[in-house]
């Protein structure tokens, strides 16, 4: 695995945590066959990640599956379903290897009492790192069952075959036994050790086949439970006062008007000021009556000056990769292109706001929370309540979107503090304004590139520096002899004093920024050399997987050299994220006012083995649709710590009327290990649209989002 595949995964702030004692744990589950999986031993985990994780991963196991006496298979995983579809794809992997039907598998996800420790659901890691050991566990379970069947059926192993939860004699198929029969009255616990042979791709019957989401029925009937849907007797709904700006200090406060509302309880606990009521909207009304005065810090930056500020406070930076000699590269180049690319803060803006319900009984707490990191939430709650960690149970029901934003559990801690002080179960569900205020935005960032190309179209120089985005996706993949890539600014969390509010990981963190800059620059060089952008890329690429996706996209899109007409233009963008190669092509239409309609997007993606091709396509479509937002409209407006965008009226996310025709080509790579799926395609959206706008209008955009005002200005330079 290459360095950038594991770097920048969100590993920080994770405390070592051990699940319940194994014996105690297994007692919970009665009879059946239980296979324990330890990710620590898993072959699949790349060397570097293993080294990095070693101090944190528990000695014991990370997941397990249990074949019950009823023949049903339950898989216990610390991963969480956020919409990305792993509730289906993990079950597919398990079912295929175990030889059971998909609908006999039940997924139990993220419950910190039932599921073994997991660091969190982010970085497109579930399928890549959790998938292989899960498959091995299923294979191991099948081997145990086969062994039991040889005794039960009195048939030698080589004559037996398993299918759909039944083991039969190949020579006498009527001589058979079900998994349920074999499991009955047994309690077999095995740890996954040593190598287990897995099916070859050609033997798959469930993996690699398009499968419908297994959670769809619950979600279309309103039965699917999210954190805000849990009801407990006596529970109170809390609304929390947000200051007018980040960094504001409270001077004085008058809660008397709020307290006059019947049934209201005001809680002041240091920085936490909350109003609680048995009706959520009454709590909201009361909160509006709280009068508070603040000392506001001086606003030093706003959404326009932030980029100069970032350049000023940026530390030196470190070379991510380098080769050749930059001076030689410059001498060999006929055209030197030096450009600066900017992108703004963007919000996660999940439709479900951060929500948590905490119930405290004695020195035990139960937490229902929308979180990507339930085990981290467990530790955070234990710490704030002063409970031993084992006394806290976090249960994540379905989560209404994450995209990196719900790795942050601030609402969980708020609910825990309030539940303790109120002596009742308390639900905190952030209002939309609170969601925008507390969100950890994708950081504003700057990329500076100096590159050089010969008239022949060969690139000789690449001098790249990214500020404050992070290094994921910063390494270029073209065949350039003289190059250097530098990253500075401490990744997406920034350095002290850099950002006026919290920043964090946002779907394919850093890579959206890096790919926008790199692929725009490539296009500018193609234009300088007078070469078609597709031909130019083909000329400068040697990487076979990248050439594969590029030619597949061009074929599907029907790329032609001729410029589109009537304000229409075509664009290309390439990128690599979490091991997956992506090529996007788009057609846009731009009117005189600078408004863009993206008409058509083709994505060719090489993600190795695709577990659920339909699920993979859904993620590509999701990436393309969501990516239209950061490309065209999404931008947090602010002055100092004051956030001006607090709802969807000014913070515009993609809508139905923006929808392009989307076509996805998945490269057939069944024999390569599976790579990331939830994030890769979104990284190309900035540049593919920017390059198409250039093709349509001759105007080059250097800042995201590409709003009509910015496009108009670029079309009519002063």
């Amino acid at each position, binding site marked *: 695995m290459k360095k950038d595949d594991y770097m920048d995964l969100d590993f920080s702030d994770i405390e070592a945590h051990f699940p319940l004692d194994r014996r105690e744990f297994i007692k919970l589950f009665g009879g059946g066959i239980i296979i324990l999986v330890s990710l620590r031993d898993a072959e699949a985990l790349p060397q570097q990640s293993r080294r990095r994780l070693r101090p944190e991963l528990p000695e014991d196991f990370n997941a397990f599956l249990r074949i019950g006496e009823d023949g049903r298979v339950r898989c216990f995983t610390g991963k969480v379903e*956020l*919409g*990305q*579809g792993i509730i289906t794809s993990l079950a597919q992997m398990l079912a295929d290897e175990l030889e059971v039907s998909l609908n006999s598998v039940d997924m139990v996800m993220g419950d910190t009492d039932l599921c073994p420790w997991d660091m969190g659901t982010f970085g497109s890691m579930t399928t890549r790192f959790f998938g292989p050991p899960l498959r091995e566990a299923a294979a191991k379970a099948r081997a145990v069952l086969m062994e039991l069947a040889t005794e039960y059926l009195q048939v030698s192993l080589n004559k037996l075959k398993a299918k759909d939860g039944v083991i039969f004699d190949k020579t006498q198929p009527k001589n058979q036994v079900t998994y349920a029969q074999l499991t009955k009255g047994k309690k077999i616990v095995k740890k996954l050790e040593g190598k287990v042979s897995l099916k070859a791709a050609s033997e798959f019957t469930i993996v690699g086949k398009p499968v*419908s*989401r297994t*959670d*769809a*029925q*619950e*979600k*279309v*009937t*309103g*039965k*699917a*439970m*999210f954190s*805000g*849907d849990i*009801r407990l007797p006596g529970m109170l709904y809390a609304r929390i006062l947000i200051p007018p700006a980040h960094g504001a200090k409270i001077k004085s406060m008058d809660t008397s008007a709020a307290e006059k509302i019947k049934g209201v309880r005001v809680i002041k606990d240091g920085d936490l000021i909350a109003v609680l009521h*048995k*009706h*959520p*909207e009454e709590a909201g009304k009361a909160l509006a009556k709280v009068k508070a005065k603040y000392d506001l810090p001086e606003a030093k930056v706003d959404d326009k000056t932030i980029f100069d500020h970032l350049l000023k406070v940026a530390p030196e930076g470190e070379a991510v990769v380098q080769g050749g000699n930059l001076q030689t590269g410059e001498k060999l180049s006929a055209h030197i292109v030096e450009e600066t690319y900017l992108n703004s803060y963007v919000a996660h*803006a*999940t*439709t*479900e*706001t951060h929500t948590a319900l905490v119930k405290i009984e004695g020195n035990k707490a139960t937490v229902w929370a929308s979180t990507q990191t339930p085990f981290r939430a467990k530790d955070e709650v234990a710490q704030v309540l002063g409970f031993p960690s084992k006394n806290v149970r976090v249960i994540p029901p*379905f*989560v*209404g*979107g994450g*995209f990196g934003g719900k790795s942050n559990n601030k609402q969980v801690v708020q609910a825990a503090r309030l539940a303790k002080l109120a002596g009742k179960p308390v639900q905190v*569900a952030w*209002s*939309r304004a609170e969601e925008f205020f507390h969100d950890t935005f994708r950081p504003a960032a700057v990329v500076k590139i100096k590159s050089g190309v010969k008239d022949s179209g060969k690139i000789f120089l690449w001098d790249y520096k990214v500020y404050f985005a992070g290094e994921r996706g910063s390494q270029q993949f073209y065949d350039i002899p003289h190059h250097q890539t530098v990253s500075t600014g401490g990744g997406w969390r920034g350095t002290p004093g850099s950002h006026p509010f919290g920043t964090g990981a946002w779907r394919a963190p850093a890579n959206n920024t890096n790919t926008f800059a790199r692929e725009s620059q490539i296009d500018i060089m193609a234009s300088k050399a007078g070469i078609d952008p597709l031909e130019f890329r083909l000329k400068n690429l040697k990487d076979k997987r990248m050439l594969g996706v590029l030619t597949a996209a061009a074929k599907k899109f029907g790329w032609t050299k001729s410029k589109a007409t009537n304000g229409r233009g075509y664009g290309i963008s390439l990128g690599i994220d979490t091991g997956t190669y992506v090529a996007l092509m788009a057609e846009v239409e731009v009117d005189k006012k600078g408004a863009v309609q993206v008409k058509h997007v083709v994505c060719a993606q090489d993600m190795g083995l695709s577990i659920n091709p*339909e*699920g993979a396509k*859904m993620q590509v*479509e*999701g*990436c*393309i*649709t*969501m990516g239209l937002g950061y490309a065209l409209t999404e931008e947090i407006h602010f002055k100092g710590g004051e956030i001006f965008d607090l*709802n*969807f*009226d000014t913070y515009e*996310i*993609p*809508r*139905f*009327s923006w*929808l392009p025709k*989307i076509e996805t080509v998945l490269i057939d790579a069944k024999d390569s290990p599976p790579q990331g799926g939830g994030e890769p395609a979104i990284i190309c959206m900035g540049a593919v649209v920017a390059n198409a706008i250039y093709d349509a209008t001759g105007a080059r955009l250097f800042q995201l989002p590409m709003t009509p005002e910015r496009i108009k200005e670029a079309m009519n330079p002063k």
Partner: protein
Amino acid sequence: MIETINFKLNDKPTRLNVDGERMLLWALRSELSLTGTKFGCGEGFCGSCTVLVNKEAVRSCQFPVKDVKGKDVITIEGLAKNGNLHPLQKAFIKHDALQCGFCTPGMILNAYSVLLKNPQPSHKDILQNMDENLCRCGAHTRIVQAIKTAAKEMIGGEKR
């Protein structure tokens, strides 16, 4: 002011004794424990709280409960009949027209109101009439396909 509000909820006569100024969303979610209707933005911008009142899609976070007196309210919990899913629900499953599923109830109910008014909407009609319902995961393409499939299914009455 606490008042008695009689209305039909998912075809069943229902009585609420509540402050009529409270919003329908919260009456559904906290008084009646019908949590399929979601809170998304609280200001009517996102459509996660969409329900039908007399077959019209309304934003229940902005709709005082006193205004449902004597009316028919349909929520996501009331769409399936006798255990049979509504054609829109079936089509959403068939096309995988959802990801996280949080906006889904609002999407389905808004789509239902669109089809009640215009049983054979064009692609453009669907985009226009669904435009005020937001989905962050980007399931839009499949939602449009699902609405088209359901429209075909529903021609000549709502077969279940």
